[in-house]
């Protein structure tokens, strides 16, 4: 038997769906009502992006990525998966990258137009990450405790960030800033697929739409 063909996606996921969804609940149990603050920060970031303050918007994202790295990956996810520590480091790297971009102004789109399709896609993805994603668990029969929130949980943080960078960045910087959140959504989507969760489809759909936005904005960088 060919060794590699004998592996299935499930063989790489060392925990059950029950444990994963409990992990989401434990974030709520530990950090509520911090969720309200991170959601407010997310909304503020969107407003700043649309008010042509991209550097400040980018700067606000950085500490949230660092918080998810520590609270979600280092302190909890890494207990379940030896790769969790590496992902945490990648989230820290993303926080540093966003902070550096904000401080240097590299790749900032200082006047995004709402009518520009990639910007409109970015707004839609951001709103989806901020508003719809927290509602997905309770609306699909799960508990409110499993609601995933921007700035607390990894998936909505990555989704919202992809939407925001589509608004505030352009050129090469846009692609660089999108790599880490996109890679995490691939990993998370595959994990959820292995756990038989339909949320995986949502994450892959967001990825596909983001890719359309990235390509579109790269083809037409000037308004």
């Amino acid at each position, binding site marked *: *038997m060919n*060794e590699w063909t*004998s*592996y*299935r996606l*499930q*063989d790489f*996921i*060392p*925990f*059950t769906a*029950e*444990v994963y969804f*409990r*992990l989401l609940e*434990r974030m709520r149990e530990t950090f509520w009502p911090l969720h309200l603050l991170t959601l407010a920060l997310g909304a503020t970031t969107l407003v700043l992006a649309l008010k042509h303050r991209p550097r400040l918007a980018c700067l606000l994202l950085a500490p949230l990525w660092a918080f998810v790295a520590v609270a979600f990956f280092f302190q*909890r996810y890494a*207990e*379940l*998966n*030896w790769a969790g520590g590496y992902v945490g480091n990648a989230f820290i790297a993303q926080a540093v990258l966003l902070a550096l971009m904000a401080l240097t102004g590299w790749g900032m789109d200082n006047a995004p137009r709402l009518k520009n399709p990639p910007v409109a896609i970015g707004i839609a993805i951001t709103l989806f990450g901020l508003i719809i994603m927290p509602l997905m668990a309770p609306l699909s029969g799960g508990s409110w405790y499993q609601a995933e929130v921007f700035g607390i949980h990894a998936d909505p943080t990555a989704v919202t960030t992809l939407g925001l960078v589509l608004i505030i960045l352009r050129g090469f910087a846009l692609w660089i800033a999108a790599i880490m959140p996109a890679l995490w959504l691939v990993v998370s989507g595959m994990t959820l697929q292995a756990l038989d969760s339909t949320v995986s489809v949502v994450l892959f759909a967001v990825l596909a739409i983001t890719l359309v936005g990235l390509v579109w904005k790269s083809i037409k960088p000037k308004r």
Partner: protein
Amino acid sequence: MNPRIKHRITRRQSLTLIGATLIGATLTAMTLPTASLLANTGGMRQKAFAGTDKKLPVIGMGTWRTFNVGNDPQLLDARTEVVKAFFEHGGGLIDSSPMYGSAPDVMGYALQELGTPESLFAAEKVWSPAGGSAREQVAELEDRWKVEQFDLVQVHNLTDWREHLVALQEMKAEGIIRHVGITTSHGRRHSEIEQIMASEDIDFVQLTYNITHREAENRLLPLAEERGIGVIANRPYDGGSLIKNLKRRNAPLPEWAQKECGCDTWADFLLKFIVSHPAITCAIPATTQVKHMHENMRAGYSSPMPSANARQRMAAYIESL
């Protein structure tokens, strides 16, 4: 009066005494069966292993995925209940690995809560990096399990097996561990496993064997019998998908299953198929639920086990579904 006459007993007293003795012996035999009787009739069926007269219950417990719950208090207590049910049924072998995330810590938590029963046969594994790390890995895992000694330490998926086996054999000779083994799964690297079984002094081999994955029957299981190597069957439900699919489809047990094999559930059917193979020492199903643990363990009780013909019939039935 002659004292001998004084103590002479009458015929009636003799008959009473003989009768009482017979009744007493019968009652004793009924209430206190010997170990061999327990092994083959009343309790969990057991099998001798590794060419010794020691025996292991035929149903053990795996921990891959199911026991990796981190430090979640709610799930730690839930898994402790699963372990409790396992021991209440007389369970023995529990298998884990440093590759299973927090599973060794969760076992440590459960054993601290429940105490460590004599029936426990603690099985662990070592993996990369090799070299001098086997001793350190075993010591660390003992701390995590909160046990003084592992009954079995296996080389996980043949990772650096040459270096690890040398180290484990030394540890066995020094009395640090009791038995040495190797593992594989999913039918991988069987030719290398065969070579190790034929040439190395190992007590156990762990491999995938279930009603839909029977490659091991060709060479590895006969070789294990010939060499007196105990065999632990992992993935008895093919990672859970086998029994889940049967239950989801409401597939009926065949009518002959109860009479020929004492099977009342799919767990009985699938596990009895495995442990009735003469070369298999035990199967290690994994579960997160107490209810499923009860089901699994009942399959090891000593109702009829399938004969060789019945085993063929069982495999054919599953293929037909």
